[in-house]
């Protein structure tokens, strides 16, 4: 989530497309593993009601006589401090974190993309104003600004989305601006202008496509970072509230019983780690695949 975005030309390969892709995947087992993990998480999210042994425990259910039971045949991952099945809650949690990441990234993209295109294409004072404002936002480590915002807003998942999106857009503005500025002065754009093609068409047809590939790569690299940030905010009590089966919140709630009931903290944490890991592997592999300077095929 923090590497400086570098311009990435689309994959240029001499091999036919299918073959190049197969070779790329074979040389990149981490990408395959990440992709498989991501598919698994999405599948769990979709089929959570079928997979979860106690779907009601993802909500408001409480079982006073089943409190903090260790893992057993009935409750594979044990029960939490109000007797809810940890496995069911972990499975339902797959519906929250990835969804938050997608919404955050779409909002950040919706703000960052047009601003970056405008700054890069028009240049001049507009560029200066947009980029100086961007610099101010980038002067905060990402988690810090999200934390400050989430701390002053009422604790909820909506707050988490707003706080992280407000922190994330400047990265995309900077990335898109760099791409747009690098093509804005090229002769073919000049000739478009000379032909009287409208600004909207030039930006939409000729500038935007140059920015889309690096933007998608960066967004896929950022999914893991957003998931970690969101779970950190929930861990600090600024995000999801009980009984939402949010993984960060579950770790936070289990903290008080941790010395005697390790399972309440351990399994939601593994779920966060697994999800962030899978998406980071996927993003990293996608960058390798789409950035010919970094592939091993040369």
């Amino acid at each position, binding site marked *: 989530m923090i590497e400086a975005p570098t311009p990435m030309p689309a994959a240029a390969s001499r091999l036919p497309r299918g073959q190049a892709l197969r070779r790329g995947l074979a040389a990149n087992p981490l990408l395959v593993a990440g992709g498989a993990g991501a598919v698994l998480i999405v599948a769990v999210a979709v089929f959570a009601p079928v997979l979860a042994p106690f779907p009601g425990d993802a909500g408001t259910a409480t079982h006073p006589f089943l409190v903090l039971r260790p893992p057993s045949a009935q409750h594979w991952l044990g029960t939490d401090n109000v007797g809810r099945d940890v496995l069911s809650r972990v499975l339902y949690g797959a519906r929250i974190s990835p969804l938050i990441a997608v919404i955050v990234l779409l909002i950040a993209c919706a703000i960052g993309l047009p601003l970056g295109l405008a700054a890069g294409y028009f240049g001049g004072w507009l560029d200066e104003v947009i980029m*100086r*404002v961007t610099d101010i936002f980038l002067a905060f480590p990402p988690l810090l600004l999200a*934390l400050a915002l989430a*701390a002053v*807003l009422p604790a909820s998942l909506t707050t988490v989305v707003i706080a992280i999106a407000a922190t994330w857009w400047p990265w995309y503005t900077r990335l898109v601006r760099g791409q747009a500025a690098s093509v804005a002065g090229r002769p073919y754009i000049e000739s478009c202008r000379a032909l009287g093609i409208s600004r909207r068409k030039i930006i939409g047809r000729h500038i935007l496509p140059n920015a889309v590939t690096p933007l998608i790569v960066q967004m896929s690299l950022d999914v893991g970072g957003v998931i970690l940030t969101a779970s950190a905010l929930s*861990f600090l009590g600024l995000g999801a509230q009980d009984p939402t089966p949010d993984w960060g919140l579950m770790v936070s709630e289990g903290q008080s019983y941790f010395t005697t009931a390790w399972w309440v903290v351990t399994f939601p*944490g593994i779920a*966060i*780690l697994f999800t962030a890991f899978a998406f*980071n592997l996927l993003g990293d592999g996608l960058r390798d695949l789409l950035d010919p300077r970094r592939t091993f095929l040369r």
Partner: protein
Amino acid sequence: MIVYAARRAALAVLVVAGVIVLTFVIARVVPGDPAATWAGPHASAAQVAAARRFLGLDRPAAVQLLAYFGGIAAGTWGVSVHTHQPVLSDIATVAPASLELVLAALVIALVTGVPLGLLSARRPGRPLDHGIRAVSILGVSMPIFWMALILQLVFAQRLRLLPAAGEFSPGLLFTHPLARHTGFDVIDALITGNWQMLGSTLGHLLLPAIVVAAYPAGLIARIVRAQVLDTIGETHVQMVRALGFPERAVFGRFAMKLAWNPVAATLALVFGYSLVNTFLVEDVFDWPGLGSYAAASISTLDTPAILGVTLFIALVYVVANLVVDIVQAALDPRIRLR
């Protein structure tokens, strides 16, 4: 060179001014009433009004912003609603413990990340490379608040290898009291020759530092690998190889030389990140630093304190980046011309 440094510094001052305005704006968004919080839960309407006057909340926003700038220039940074102390003096008390933790973490990150990155770049695409890449990506995917709890459970509570919490064993305060000079416990123990205390502080530092190091270590390994792979094909490195230098030297001395610059930039970046990550770790290890202070401020909704910490870390972050920019330009003349 001086022109370049001056230009960077001027830009940094602008950014800092913007950062102050932004924290002020965030403070104004707060839905609760700071005056009511200040006056306490049983205050009368008149007391709340008095608190509002005292805090200056009855004045126009522009005047408040000027007063906020004035307070920052005068060095109070607002007054904590919770401790009723100037926020800056609170921060000065807790900052050394966090800086010590972050610096220790960055040292761990460097001594693990750089060799791992080099090893990974040695044979790209081989199983060892894939393994190291997976480990480094695992490091940047770590929910560190969870890692802190797990390491504490395993190494402190179950195996009893390391202390669970605190900066040193409190009993030592009676037998080997720590003389305060710098505020950094490890350094104070070292310069006063307090070996018992030194051992205790290092032991207590290890677990939290490892947790904070997870992210920077993974990042550094990835960056070293990418940089070394970028430069390994260059003619001067090929030349060294042709001259018959052993592979170790080709990678460790010649290819790595060009990687130090991006590693330095990364260190400035993760220095700021790690300071924020202490928010998630210090509370678990009962480490009396910025993170614990921030976590306490968050739970008591102490807005001036939260914004003070936010501002402090943003300033540290801007300054760290500025220093690295200038040092890099001094080392590499090409940067100045950009």
